[in-house]
């Protein structure tokens, strides 16, 4: 019995470790002191102050634009490609199938500097466009892997049955394949969105003037000290994304239950 308690305690400790800095950030967003060192009094003022900090709001908006745009585009390309790589044979397919793992395994910094290098080579001006393009570049492989895991041998049977009944290719994809792989598409999209929000390294190399995202704004402030309005923004963001993702998960599990 004591043994079991210790085991559960270990699991709790690991989660405590994983959530500790986030809990601290949330607590300090209610701290009246502007220094993030001592907790003085409880206050909501940083949640109001935050909207007066234009740089912070701008960087937050940029972060959201980057995350949403790159998620949508990489989910579309990733889904189409996962199906294409699964269904069709074409020259270079084998090469492409191994190359798509490169962004997953190589250090982010290598991807960051190599993208920066070709943007410079192509004389692309660094800014929102290059950040979004880079986020698309590292998200696509994750979406492909996620969608691919939902494409099983089962789909082949459905496909053949539909073909026998005279359905067109696009109709088969839209009405048969897409609904089957939807859970993979959704989790791929969530993964892409999460990776984009979490990214520091790639944005660091591919951002330009006027395209400050939240991590870059914070990085520039970290030596001089970060004000609690950043904590307040983090708390708001975390709450919103957490609620959104939980509702997506609930809706999805309900749909699956209905189908069963």
């Amino acid at each position, binding site marked *: 019995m004591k043994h079991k308690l210790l085991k559960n305690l*270990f*699991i709790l400790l*690991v989660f405590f*470790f*994983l959530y500790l*800095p986030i809990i601290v*950030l949330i607590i*300090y967003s209610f701290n009246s002191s502007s220094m*993030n*060192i001592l907790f003085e009094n409880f206050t909501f003022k940083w949640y109001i102050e935050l909207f007066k900090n234009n740089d912070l709001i701008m960087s937050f908006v940029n972060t959201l634009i980057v995350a949403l745009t790159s998620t949508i585009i990489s989910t579309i*390309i990733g889904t189409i*490609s996962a199906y*294409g790589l699964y269904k*069709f044979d*074409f020259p270079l397919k084998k*090469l*492409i199938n191994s*190359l*798509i*793992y*490169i*962004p*997953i*395994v*190589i*250090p*982010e*910094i*290598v*991807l960051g*500097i190599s*993208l*920066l*290098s070709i943007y410079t*080579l192509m004389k692309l001006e660094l800014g929102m466009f290059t950040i979004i393009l880079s986020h698309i*570049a590292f998200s696509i492989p994750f979406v*492909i*892997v*996620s969608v*691919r*895991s939902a494409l099983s041998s089962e789909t082949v049977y459905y496909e053949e049955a539909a073909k026998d009944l005279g359905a067109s290719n696009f109709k088969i994809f839209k009405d048969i394949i897409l609904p089957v792989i939807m859970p993979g598409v959704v989790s791929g999209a969530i993964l892409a969105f*999460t*990776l984009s*929000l*979490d990214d*520091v*390294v790639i944005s*660091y190399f591919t951002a330009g003037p006027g395209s400050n995202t*939240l*991590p870059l704004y*914070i990085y520039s402030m*970290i030596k001089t000290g*970060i004000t609690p309005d*950043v904590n307040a923004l*983090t708390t708001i963001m*975390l709450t919103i*994304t*957490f609620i959104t*993702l939980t509702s997506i*998960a609930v809706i999805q599990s309900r749909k699956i239950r209905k189908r069963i």
Partner: protein
Amino acid sequence: MKKNSGFKSFFILPIIIYTFVLILLPIIYILFLSFCTSDSYGGILYNFTLDNYLNIFDMTYIKMLLKSSLIALVTTFICILISYPFALILRNKSEHIKNLTTKLIMVPFLTNSLIRTYGWIILLRKNGIINKFLTSLGIIAFPLNLMYNKLGIIIGMTYTLLPFMLLPVCSAVFEIDKSLIEAAKDLGAKPLQIFKNIILPQTISGVFNGSLMVFIPAIGYFFIADILGGGKTMIIGNLIKNQFLTARNWPFGSAIAIFLIIITFALVKVYKKLGGKMEELGGL
């Protein structure tokens, strides 16, 4: 037939363009750069040289490479030490709890890793929460140096990368056939024997998967070394970053990047030899 080929290109053209423009071209270009030289203004001179690669073997860089690898290795090792018991304990829980835990491991990623690293400053600094807590309990008399040193970097790296070890180790451990362990127990095998002869061989590719996803970022995450190491300890990521943004010696920076790619490919090869699948990389 024509219609069919239009359908096919719709599904394969994007991936061909993507792979060549955003994966292959950037890497070929830095490979090309790594054989060039740079002038004192950061401009690139297109004359073939191997100097950038020979420079890596300079004593100062070798020392840095070793130090950075050591930090990454310690981080990987700590992550393994945490993940194994974690997965083994969870193995006996219900499916529902298992699913919930894997989701809860991912939630911290919804806040940017830089922001979470900043959270560690509040915790670790001299007048931070941990030191205040320990001194008020009388456990320590003077605040400990928990950051602005290698310890700080290792704490930050372990924290940021632990999920990448937890997820693959959990999925590998959960897949072990229960009856195998029970049979071994019935035959009188000791826990250590069970671990060595059943659990370890069956989970080794999962552990190597995690190790890959921890070790490789841990040599590159310059921002953790900057923030929690106080800029005193440079890891390979800092070196590349400096070559590109401060020293503006892109060819040398590219050579180090190519060097990292080679190390990564070698590690991936080992992973595949151990029976690991590519699509399982990255804790998917």
